[in-house]
């Protein structure tokens, strides 16, 4: 059978592979190469070694963005997952109106980051102006504003995954725990959570990588104001690239560092949570 399929290599493989080359492989390799170059266009690149990387680390805004993004990713990771898990628990209790609630909680997830950013900008500024404050004046407001926005957007999504996970827990396991006299707390920590580890792995993986990659929401809600204090990594890279002439190489070097960071964190996170999964 393999042989027969192999003959159709061009039909099955070529379209995706060609697009994959254009849309990912070539740009990726060129991107790595250009991070060691000084350039304004691809043609005039000259090799400069690690200079761009040194400049990237010498840039305070980049280092600040790194810390800010990390803090944001961790805080949003915890809040999103705890809240989503609680909602999922509540929505699997067969309460009246569950379907409507689920519909509403999931909805913000379908709205794009740019649109969300402007929706919340109006709301936050409306509230803050009552106290003579504004979102782009204080990095703290920008930080918590973005956290609230991202929670609003992503809780529903994670909740759906947790609900799916909760529904796969066999009822007999729960019943057995009940018969053994386990308290609600014990049932949660000894039975539910361990059984839920696969869902938790996925949700934490998604929320931490989303947190690190956040761009649209950051751009539209605060735009990095005040003075780059709420600028996250992705936006910092974009700004380095496109609003400063002569810094393209530095921008690309930052992008490579950003990529390594995201991959590293993703792997680390998978390793940590996968090790806690029970073999079923």
């Amino acid at each position, binding site marked *: 059978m393999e042989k027969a399929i192999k003959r159709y290599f061009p039909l099955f493989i070529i379209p995706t592979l060609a697009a994959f080359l254009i849309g990912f*492989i*070539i740009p*990726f*390799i*060129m991107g*790595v*190469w250009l991070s060691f170059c000084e350039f*304004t*266009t*691809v*043609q005039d690149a000259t090799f400069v070694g690690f200079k761009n990387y040194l400049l990237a680390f010498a840039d305070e805004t980049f280092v600040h963005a790194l810390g800010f993004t990390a803090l944001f990713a961790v805080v949003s990771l915890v809040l999103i997952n705890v809240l989503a898990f609680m909602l999922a628990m509540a929505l699997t209790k067969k309460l009246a109106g569950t379907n409507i609630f689920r519909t509403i909680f999931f909805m913000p997830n379908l709205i794009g980051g740019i649109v969300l950013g402007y929706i919340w900008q109006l709301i936050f*500024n409306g509230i803050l*102006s009552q106290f*003579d*404050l*504004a*979102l*782009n*004046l*204080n990095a703290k407001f920008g930080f918590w504003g973005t956290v609230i926005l991202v929670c609003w957007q992503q809780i529903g999504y994670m909740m759906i995954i947790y609900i799916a996970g909760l529904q796969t827990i066999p009822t007999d396991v729960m019943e057995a725990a009940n018969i053994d006299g386990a308290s609600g707390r014990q049932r949660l920590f000894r039975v539910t959570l361990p059984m839920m580890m696969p869902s938790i792995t996925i949700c934490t993986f998604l929320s931490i990588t989303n947190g690190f990659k956040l761009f649209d929401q950051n751009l539209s809600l605060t*735009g990095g*104001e*005040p*003075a*780059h204090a709420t600028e996250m990594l992705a936006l910092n890279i974009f700004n380095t*690239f*496109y*609003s*400063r*002439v*002569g810094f393209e190489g530095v921008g690309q070097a930052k992008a490579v560092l950003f990529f390594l960071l995201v*991959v590293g964190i993703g*792997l680390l996170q*998978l*390793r940590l949570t*996968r*090790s806690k*999964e029970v*073999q079923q």
Partner: protein
Amino acid sequence: MKMKRLLATGLAAMLMAGALAACGSTPASTGTASTPSTAAPASTGAAVGDGKVYYLNFKPEQDEQWQALAKAYTEETGVEVTVLTAASGQYETTLKSEIAKTEAPTLFQVNGPVGLASWKDYCYDLSSSQLYGELSSDEFALKDGDKVAGIAYVIETYGIIYNKGLLEKAGYTQDDIKNFEDLKKVAEDITARSGELGFSAFTSAGMDGSSDWRFKTHLANLPIYYEYKADGISSTDAIKGSYLDNYKAIWDLYINNSTTKPALLSTKTGDDAVAEFVTEQAVFYQNGTWAYNDIADLGDDNLGMLPIYIGAEGEEKQGLCTGTENYWCVNSKASEEDIQATLDFLYWCVTSEEGTTALCTDMGFVIPFKGNLPATNPLVNISNDYIADGYTPVSWNFTTMPSEQWKNDLGSALTGYAAGTSQWDGVVTAFVDGWAKEYAAVNG
């Protein structure tokens, strides 16, 4: 077990990618090398016959007029002219992403010597163009050595536009305001009586991106102008900030005597300020000749302009701020046909009746070309009167500001100061230290 496999997968993927990057560099480089050779004939092939014009416009206020003019030109000559207007504050970003494309702008603009330094590789030498021959004075050419890299297309003037009727209602006329002290006295008096008068002194000094350039760039020109004048220089790699106290004084005056509480300025937009001025909620509005169309409803006779006084010595003879930061540059990397088409279009703009009418009347520009028409824009006439009366115009020195980044950082510092979340020191740091830092970063 599962974890191990996953880890192995990840590691393998990274190794593979590394190997691919290493051994893939040969095919990749031939790939990029072959790109120009295949793309070049294609693009010249497409350009057979007439060239095309693609203008990346800087001035959002005149977007509609440019679109109309482009359409008129296409109808008359059949040459395709596309105009894209960058969002305000986004010109540099848009230019950078557009110029890298195969269909790059054939016509763009730089804001003076600093902008030219970044873009000079893209500037076609205009010294032998007909357009250059139309310039009314050589001082409006932006030169890079002997090369004419850019040509100014509009001379503009800004100051404090005021509502004559309202100022009279408050009991003053323009003659009462001859220096910063007078301005301060009048503004503070209006603020004190604003409840009874029903209006404020200044429109909101909005620090939203659509309005903040009025302060981080235009207002900041004054301390720079006086410092350059005192030191007898025309640009610098390190500003001293000798007139920053004056900058603080005028900024304080603006934010404490406006329609809006200082803390709320950060979200105020350009539209808000226009609305306040047009609905007679404020007397003073810092802006320039380009803003005329927005405020024309108040009536031409009702509009006046004051110099921006900051309390520097000898300011009684200070006029309005007149200059240009708008230089047309033709993209030297465009195809020959496109360059020629662009030059033809520009020549038509500044010589034909339709072109000059559009520029001078519809857009309200004063153009530094022989074909300039008498102004219908009353703000332009006011600025001419100042010069005729012997006032010294303030030159536009903000074209020597080291970078866009510098302006943005200054803007953030001004916003923070206005809101009370940071001190004036922040503005001083952004202004003085930021200048040296940005100058070094940009000029290597």
